[in-house]
């Protein structure tokens, strides 16, 4: 008989349900009814011959799914770090007071919307906005007059775009399809350029591509663009998607050519509706140029990219959780190894890179590794996008030389609100990175220097914290995010994040500060860091530890784990 092959280490529940994902069918039911009536779920299970609990597992895991009718207006508000620094607590309380009795409006606190440059951020019926615009949007939404605005395309042109306005795009792709650009040359350029994953883990991109390409030839491969950045303070990919969809897609298509994949997906968070439209439009453009299809430009290669809209949850940024989601399961990270490059989507080798990583590929292939390396500063190589938020004058996305110092980037963003002296701390790499003090202005924003300083480059999100902010409260806010977004699969993260948050909230409520944090937190941090399955649990308590002082075993002393996304 034919046994279903599984790589060693594949856990029992990974890829558990045979057959297609039920998520599209559930989405269709929700689109028709606005929610998921029980009778429809029973019918789906019966007709698809799938267990009811599988459906329950999915719909209870993803915030996108509703098991009761939706209100007339959904008002989502964010209280995560960047918004919290901008007074979200009070503003949300105001909104609750204003709409609390309004039966038409459901005020729901959600995790980071990725609009930290407009903090505090809200979304009215999925239309993102700054909190000041709430009332107008709610009023139009009530009248069913809400107009969905396009993506914010501010910033740019960025220096990583090899194509000047008006110049035909996708030239690297055309060269590769025509046989003028060998896969080895692409991988070689990436390796020589020293490009590393920009989603946070920093895995060398060239090596990842060649690893997937080297998998046995009889196995299909897949390419996924991880456009699910969801960490508080992180929104740089959003701006790349909005302004450089052609680079993201060209990078992906090159990745598909190099690894031998025929199918690719852009996995995009559902809060990025406007940006998703940009990507879809660009995919149509590719189609119209004959750059996607069964036999692209007569090359004999089949290339097809589709958009997969995330049903929600920060954890899906973790690559194996993302794959679980795409396969139609609860987005719970897998034990690794095996890694997705060997055993990814549907058990096949899968190349997954983030938006920014793919977006850098065309320019590196076009201008060469040397050019790329020369773009860096202070020993860094290439360019780097940063999302800057918090207490700065001009929050936004900046593309700067890798190695730009913390101080320089803050300057570009208009400086600290209240002046340079007001700087209290920064989180250089998103919510999962450790807080650093004001003494780090001269530290280059690059993998190694930040690690040496006790933090990390992470997801490319610089959160600036000014004087007057309770750092323990800020770090507890970050912990709250991780607790909310924990998938619940493994014990240390599921329980540790909750217990630690309970301990810290009561400490803060009693007026305690960083000095009062006891050893339970220190121990929980160690256990979560060492035993959690994925980066989320491993880093969740890091920021808290980072604010309690070096003398108590804090940041700089510890090896920094990889973040979730």
């Amino acid at each position, binding site marked *: 008989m034919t046994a279903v092959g599984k790589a060693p280490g594949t856990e029992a529940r990974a890829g558990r349900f045979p057959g297609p994902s039920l998520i599209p069918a559930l989405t269709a039911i929700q689109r028709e009814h606005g929610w998921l009536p029980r009778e429809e779920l029973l019918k789906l299970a019966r007709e698809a011959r799938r267990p009811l*609990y599988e459906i*329950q*597992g999915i719909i209870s895991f993803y915030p996108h799914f509703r098991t009761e009718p939706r209100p007339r207006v959904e008002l989502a508000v964010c209280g995560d770090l960047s918004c919290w620094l901008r007074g979200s607590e009070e503003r949300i309380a105001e909104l609750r007071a204003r709409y609390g009795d309004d039966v038409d409006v459901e005020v729901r606190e959600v995790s980071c919307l990725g609009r930290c440059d407009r903090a505090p951020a809200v979304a009215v019926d999925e239309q993102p906005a700054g909190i000041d615009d709430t009332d107008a949007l709610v009023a139009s939404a009530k009248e069913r007059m809400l107009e969905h605005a396009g993506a914010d395309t501010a910033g740019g042109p960025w220096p990583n775009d090899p194509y000047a306005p008006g110049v035909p795009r996708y030239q690297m792709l055309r060269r590769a399809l025509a046989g003028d650009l060998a896969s080895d040359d692409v991988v070689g350029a990436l390796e020589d350029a020293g490009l590393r994953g920009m989603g946070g883990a920093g895995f060398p991109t060239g090596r990842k591509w060649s690893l997937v390409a080297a998998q046995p030839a009889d196995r299909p491969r897949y390419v996924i663009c991880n456009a699910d950045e969801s960490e508080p303070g992180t929104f740089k990919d959003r701006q790349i998607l909005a302004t450089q969809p052609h680079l993201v897609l060209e990078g992906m298509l090159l990745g598909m050519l190099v690894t031998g994949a025929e199918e690719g997906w852009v996995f995009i968070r559902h809060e990025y509706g406007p940006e998703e439209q940009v990507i879809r439009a660009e995919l149509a453009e590719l189609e119209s140029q004959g750059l996607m299809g069964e036999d692209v430009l007569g090359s004999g290669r089949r290339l097809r990219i589709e958009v997969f809209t995330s049903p929600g949850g920060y954890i899906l940024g973790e690559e194996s959780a993302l794959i679980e989601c795409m396969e139609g399961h609860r987005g719970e990270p897998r034990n690794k190894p095996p890694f997705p490059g060997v055993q990814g989507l549907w058990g096949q080798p899968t190349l997954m890179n983030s938006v920014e990583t793919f977006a850098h590929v065309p320019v590196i292939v076009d201008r060469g590794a040397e050019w790329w390396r020369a773009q860096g500063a202070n020993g860094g190589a290439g360019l780097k996008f940063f999302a800057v938020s918090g207490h700065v004058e001009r929050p936004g996305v900046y593309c700067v030389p890798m190695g730009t110092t913390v101080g320089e980037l803050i300057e570009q963003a208009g400086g600290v609100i209240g002046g340079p002296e007001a700087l209290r701390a920064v989180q250089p790499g998103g919510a999962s990175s450790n807080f650093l003090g004001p003494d780090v202005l001269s530290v280059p924003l690059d993998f190694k220097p930040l690690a040496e300083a006790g933090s990390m480059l992470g997801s490319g999100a610089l959160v600036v914290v000014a004087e007057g902010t309770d750092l323990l409260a800020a770090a507890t806010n970050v912990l709250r995010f991780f*607790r909310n977004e*924990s998938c619940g699969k493994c014990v240390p993260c*599921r329980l540790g994040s909750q217990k630690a948050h309970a301990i810290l909230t009561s400490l803060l409520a009693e007026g305690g500060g960083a000095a009062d944090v006891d050893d339970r937190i220190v121990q929980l941090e160690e*256990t979560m860091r060492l035993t959690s399955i994925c980066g989320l649990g491993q880093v969740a308590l890091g920021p808290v530890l980072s604010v309690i002082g070096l003398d108590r075993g804090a940041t700089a002393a510890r090896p920094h784990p990889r973040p979730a996304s």
Partner: protein
Amino acid sequence: VAISTPAPPEIRTVTLSIDGQELTVPEGTTIWTAARDAGIEIPVLCHDERYDPVGVCRVCAVDVGGRVLAAACVRPCEDGMEVKTATPDVERQRETLTRLLVADQPAPEEDAKETTTGDNELFELARRYGVEREDGDAGALPCGSGRGSDFSNPVIAIDHDACILCDRCVRACDDVQGNDVIGRTGKGYTTRIAFDLDDPMGESSCVTCGECVAACPTGAITNKPLHEVPIRPREELKQVDTVCPYCGVGCALTYHVDEERGAIAFAEGRDQPGNKGRLCVKGRYGWDYARSPQRLVTPLIRRDDAYPKGPLSADVRGEGRGRKKPGGLVDYDEVLPHFREATWEEALDLVGERLRTIHGEHGAGAIAGFGSAKCSNEEAYLFQKLIRAGFGTNNVDHCTRLCHASSVAALFEGVGSGAVSTTYGDIINADVAILAGTNTTANHPVASSFFKQARRRGTKLIVVDPRRERIADHADIYCQIKPGTDVAFYNGVMHEVIARGLTDREFIAARVNNYGDVAKVVKEYPPERAAQICGVGADVIREVARLWGEAGAGVIYWGMGISQHTTGTDNSRCLIAMCAITGNVGKPGAGLHPLRGQNNVQGASDAGLVPMFYPNYQPVEDVANRERFETAWGRELDPARGLTVTEIIGAALHGSVRGMYMMGENPFLSDPNINKVRKALSALDFLVVQDIFLTETAEFADVVLPATSYLEKDGTYTNTDRRVQLGRKVLDPPGQARPDWEIISDVANRIGLPMDYTSPSEIFDEMVSLGTDYAGLSYDNLGSTGKLYPNPDPEHSDGTVVLFDDHFGTDDGRAHLVAAEWMPARELPNDEFPFVLNTGRLLEHWHTGSMTRRSFALDAISPRALVFVHPEDAAELGVGEGDMLRVTSRRGSIEIETRISHRETRGSCFIPFHFREAAANVLTIDAIDPVGKIPEFKFCAVRLERAGSPVAAGVDA
């Protein structure tokens, strides 16, 4: 019997060190397994070797020199890896993880596991790490809020607070039992286990197999005590290793017996090659019938004023409309006063005298006996010996006639043996398995778990059944044939197999007779024609043929959907031909397996409890056989085959059979057209019923003898796989109840057939000595897990899995195929009776319900008679769930509650036959298969009409 297996693929190894020990293990071995094999214990909570690892509790974290620790249960060993399993750093994390888990647990003195079996694995770990749930403790963590409990299942309690989300229950439910009910709901800290759409367990699709209870390491999922017999630590109870008394799967189990209370506290599955520790709801929870206060404890003699004989219950007399207690079993208050208590002496004397008198006055043919497939091999052997040697007649039969008689007839004719050619577990070696006419999840639940598991491991599953039963949800191809069209379907498949050249020509040439006849007949069944008859698309028939024909190994398991037809023998002949023409017999993963119903239907037939065979299938009409048995038993024997069950009922009605001995059978409910049965039983001059309860049949008895239940005696039982297992005495019998074998002996002595057996093992030895199949087996070598027969070396071998590896059991060693033409069922629907009635069993109930309806769990889960109707038919009839329907056939009419079911075919309905208050067999037709003499339980024409008003829940007695 040597079966050549392909050489295993070359195994690569890796070398690593664990705690300084250098180890070389096969690639893919996990660190935990490698360590365990090297004698290094790594603590675990979520991991259990019964299931594939998930690595979620992280307690098995070990240092592999990485940035973080690795979960040993799921992490494969790598070359050069240096593993440290118990450094202070590692132990500190384990302690913290334990602390985290304990923080949300109930206190040990309130924990449902710690206070019962006392083996809560988390608390054990907590003691090891010195972690206690004390709020004053400096290291104490905040206690979580209550996540609730669920007591909606009658026998299983859920405490979500005690749940550590280890996923063991999820894996047990899915991967082991294939029931697919339990999963995780919610996210993060609020995650819980949930049933279906987060429904109460008792209202979900859970089948209460209890595998989750067996899996759970904490107090989250536990057994509730039954009848207030407390569940205590195993060491305080007595363990009796025995076998489940219900179905032919014959699961090995252990009863944990409270000796002070003389009662079973709980049951657990036992590791035996067949069931591998699994049980179903009947096995795990259905044993309390033995302690029912309704057990017969004294011999009873019918009072003089209870003559002339007839049914004693008003409802059986047809006066049931005004019954104060609708539903339920025989009403003792109503029936018992018609009997008086007697001593064993008086009762046995009366039995001996009356039977002897009838025998003397009317001849041997006036006596008949029904034995039971629920009794042991020894009792079956003894009973047929009593009838044959004591009364000189072969009029002895049992309920095999009602289940697989036609299968056995076809198998004898075709392959020379009525037993299965391979085991249910052998499906794991099959490329393709066909499940034909078997509601296996209900009737052979544990076997079905192996079918589902095999499918998940790559075996293609083809389910052919008019009812879309739960197993169909697991099928690669489900063929919803119209009732009674099996021959057309399989002929169509064989047509296509032959047309595509997918037969095994070598096998046919070497081992098959009459292939030409089959080829000629199936030529007339091109898929299009077969499709027209059976309702399954021609393309589906082609796909089945392709899969079956191309399979390296294919096996067919079938049930009553094949056998209980007037064409039952033809149906089975088709399956035999399916296997024979493709060479799918006599190798691993291939063969023929009629799933036997009763726990000992195989053994009872093996023991000769059938009218045409002596023990070990030696035909009674063969002179040499007869002479051999005459010598062995010292009596002249009847040279002609006897009457079958259905024929005996007919003979009783017409007065040729006048005296009957009924051991553990209840034909009043189990036989077709029970109005006819009632008249037949009333017509008997003398009826002795030997049973554990007052059955419907006992209402017609002159003498009722109280027997021991399965749980109160020793004996052997042979399961569907041909596994002979020892059933051991668990409890003392109530009152004056006595083992059947002793009662038979006493009756035998009273009719002049001396029997002086001192133990069941002595009877077993005598039986074994008179045949060849059981040769070599004895009580001493059956061991705790039994032995498959044939078994050339029972001291060392589990026995033969695959039969017929080089020849069949026929005279010439070749398969004898018989071609079959499709014939419609005997009674087709018409305008007056437009529906097809199908009958069968429910998961929770056993045959006439005399055991299961007295089990708390089974009765609580399934208390009422139901008719299952397709939603569209229900809509046309104007009935909803719970409404009463009147179901009428040409033979009778019943009123019964409606259950709307998507699993029925339109135009068909299904009624389980367990319920006397709405007895399906009032309706069924007593037409029989001409060869196997089996009644057509699966097909008769009925009319459905709305009746009465909705019934409130819980109206059962």
